[in-house]
């Protein structure tokens, strides 16, 4: 039988070949919980009455949602996670190290062909490295800690073929928003999105992480990029071996095949309060913006910060616009500092926040006021998402965010870019 990438990855983790629709119990290569899901996972693990982790090397916890710690209650939860990790000998990334979805790829934990489960919905990010990354709950995470395995339904696959070369002003975020708009917020529910096409050669690893990160907003279980030279080059920094890249079999069975032509694409924006409420930036041009967020697991990488800096280097931030910049990890923070762009942002009136999820879901500081319009590079704009139901959240690329910071309005970034960008 001819299999899709996800069918082959799950087959490699079961005792028999599997196909879409089966419910199976594969072994898991790596599982990650955050301070949003970890405390409950630990409590549930203890209720399972199993005394030790099946394999501590496959368990990682990251304190990234509440950074720095906002109150005494969360401080107790953070301490509970620290103590648990110490006692069970599993890896902990403490406050300020960065967002789990950035740290796992950045530190070489994600291997092609592996199954990586995260107790956080944006774990589909890891598909950028040809892995099966998907979000799970806290009971699920506890079960992986206890048994090293988890029940999974083998999803159907939807093949997404990306054709053509995007314009310079069209970033990976625009591409992702465009696809979310076209697919809708549940078109791919339960499905695996499998990417192919010549556009991929124009997407570096930062871009691929952005695209895969956003795909849960279509309902997808996972979003998997092929293994190619770009993947290989990215992985070469870790000198890692023993992984098994996975290609689809010729003639594999796809639920749907969808093609997107990207060369005519323009910058995209999601308007309140649904991620699939997508417009061309030019359609909403002039909408006033009070607050701009550049960061998160979608767009807090070095390339994103450099793109935003390319505009904010030559143009002043509009008076009254609150600009927050949140590097996705300590490494990115350092690189941005070395390249002088943190100072550039700061001199231009930005607040630089510590590496972490930032204001994305209202868990850390940076909560918008009543009636404020926010333009964020994050992945969700639900009502109340950032901690205030009276705020409106727009989602765009780092370029679109920077352009809005400069004008105080939604602005197509194209007119600000030099030809040599």
């Amino acid at each position, binding site marked *: 039988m001819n299999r899709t990438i996800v069918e082959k990855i799950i087959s490699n983790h079961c005792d028999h070949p599997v196909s879409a629709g089966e419910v199976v119990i594969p072994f898991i290569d790596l599982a990650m919980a955050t301070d949003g899901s970890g405390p409950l996972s630990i409590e549930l693990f203890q209720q*399972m009455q199993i005394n030790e982790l099946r394999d501590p090397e496959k368990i990682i916890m990251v304190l990234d949602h509440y950074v720095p710690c906002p*109150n005494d209650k969360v401080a107790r939860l953070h301490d509970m996670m620290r103590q648990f990790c110490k006692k069970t000998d599993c890896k902990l990334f403490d406050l300020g190290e960065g967002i789990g979805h950035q740290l796992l790829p950045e530190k070489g934990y994600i291997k092609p062909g592996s199954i990586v489960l995260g107790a956080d919905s944006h774990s589909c990010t890891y598909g950028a490295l040809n892995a099966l990354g998907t979000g799970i709950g806290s009971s699920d995470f506890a079960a992986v800690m206890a048994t090293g395995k988890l029940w999974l339904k083998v999803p159907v696959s939807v093949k997404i073929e990306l054709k053509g070369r995007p314009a310079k002003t069209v970033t990976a975020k625009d591409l992702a928003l465009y696809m979310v708009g076209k697919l809708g917020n*549940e078109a791919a529910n339960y499905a695996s999105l499998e990417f192919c096409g010549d556009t991929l050669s124009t997407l570096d690893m930062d871009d691929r992480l952005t695209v895969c990160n956003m795909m849960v907003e279509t309902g997808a279980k996972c979003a998997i990029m092929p293994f190619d030279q770009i993947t290989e080059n990215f992985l070469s920094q870790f000198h890692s071996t023993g992984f098994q890249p996975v290609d689809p079999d010729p003639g594999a069975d796809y639920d749907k095949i969808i093609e997107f032509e990207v060369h005519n694409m323009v910058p995209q924006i999601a308007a309140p309060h649904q991620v699939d409420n997508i417009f061309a930036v030019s359609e909403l041009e002039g909408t006033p913006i009070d607050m701009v967020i550049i960061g998160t697991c979608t767009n807090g990488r070095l390339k994103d910060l450099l793109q935003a800096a390319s505009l904010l280097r030559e143009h002043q931030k509009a008076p009254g616009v609150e600009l927050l910049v949140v590097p996705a990890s300590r490494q990115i923070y350092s690189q941005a500092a070395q390249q002088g762009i943190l100072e550039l942002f700061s001199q231009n009136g930005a607040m630089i926040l510590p590496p972490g999820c930032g204001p994305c879901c209202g868990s850390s500081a940076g909560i918008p006021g009543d009636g404020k319009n926010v333009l964020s590079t994050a992945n969700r704009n639900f009502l109340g998402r950032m901690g205030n139901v009276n705020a409106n959240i727009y989602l765009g690329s780092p370029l679109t965010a920077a352009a809005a910071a400069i004008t105080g309005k939604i602005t197509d970034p194209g007119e600000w870019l030099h030809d040599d960008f």
Partner: protein
Amino acid sequence: MTTFEGCAHKFEDDINTDYIISSRRKRDTLDLNILKNYIMEDIDPEFAGKLQPGDILTAGYNFGCGSAMEVAALVLKAAGIKVVVAKSFARTFYRNAINSGLLPIEADTDDIDANDRLRINLKNTGIIIHNLTKNTMVRASAPGGVILEIFRAGGLVNYIRDAGNFPPGVSEK
């Protein structure tokens, strides 16, 4: 056979987990008995006050989209809800519901109105939703194999605590 009976509450499409329980409430406490007072507060501030144990949530497409946080399923259960019927579920909510012992049923909910009295029969072979107010009936698929076993155990914690592990080599269509 397991039977559930209760009063229906009706929601639209795309009810996300932030609506079910806001992240800012989780920052203050993880105590479900407190959190249950804030269910759906951002879209219906009166809702939590109206809920009675045994009530049944009904919704359109994509119920539970957004964050994977299990609290969204646990808080409904803590409020005495045992069943959610929706046209479709986001996959993480579906998992969390089963793992928490809350029954997610995929069925057409167009003919169910708020305050209809529903009786739901769950058998291994399928589910029947009786609308006692309208005297109508809708059929739905029951979850299969290990998924139903986890639900019947009362959730994944009980399942693992009782069995010690997953069964080897499980695979069902």
